[in-house]
């Protein structure tokens, strides 16, 4: 284990930033969703890196739970996108105005 932990954290930071840019730039709900997945993965990488740094397996278990929750989140999110698409023939997030105040 000779790679400094900071490199993994930096990689996670870069991936998270790319995820942020993706969420901010895109209008397509599917692309936004994929960017959110990228962010989730970056955070998981951080958790595992800190687990290694602190010699604590709790971090790996937390990353595992995070993956489970992400799986559930993807299922529900994609179902919502599909049902929005059925209703409006579009996945543009700007066109979905029902939940706006």
């Amino acid at each position, binding site marked *: 284990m000779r790679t400094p932990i900071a490199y993994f954290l*930096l990689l996670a930071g870069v991936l998270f930033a790319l995820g942020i840019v993706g969420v901010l730039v895109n209008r397509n709900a599917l692309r936004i969703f994929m960017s959110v997945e990228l962010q989730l993965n970056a955070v998981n990488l951080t958790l595992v890196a800190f687990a290694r740094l602190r010699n604590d397996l709790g971090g790996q278990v937390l990353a595992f739970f995070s993956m489970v929750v992400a799986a559930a989140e993807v299922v529900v999110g994609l179902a919502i996108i599909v049902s929005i698409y059925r209703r409006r023939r579009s996945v543009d997030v700007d066109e979905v105005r029902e939940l706006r105040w």
Partner: protein
Amino acid sequence: MPLDNVVFWVFAPIAVAAAVAMLLTRHVIYAALFLVANFACIAVMYLLLDAAFLFAVQIIVYAGAIMVLFLFVIMLLGVDRIDVRSERLFLQRPLAIVLGIGFVVEVTAAIRAGVGLSTHAPEGFDQLQQAGNTQAVAAVLFRDYFFPFEATSILLIVAAIAAMVLAQRKVRAVTQAEIDAEVAAGQPSDVRTAS
């Protein structure tokens, strides 16, 4: 150069490049495939961090199940139709990129202050998982985190039911009287009246 470093410097640029390509590509389906490549690289990072179990879970759950679900939905909605071409907000793209760079700078400073840029992981992780990473994770999971583990099973069931409820097509039950009326009018609406 130690092998760990070689593997890291091979896969980290691929991970970043795949993420950038995901943002830049025009096709949604290519974006999903680049995301798969990115997830695979992150799985290799887990291997470098002595998390063999999460390596397998990452490949199976993320690169496998979740991305297949994404591809499935992209195909279901129609690949060519779902790209959005509405006009953008003023300065949206440059501002987002500036914010992203600012975030990277901030994270770098935080890592430097908190962890140190050249801090190596301490020894002793191998003693923690002598019988193997999966066994060690299982011991922690089923001893310390047993209740959250059971709670996730409820979460998954709820999510599965929610997906079925949300994505179902509303099919109206057709009464026999309606079919008779259509047939009598000489305009059976579709196949279901044939039987």
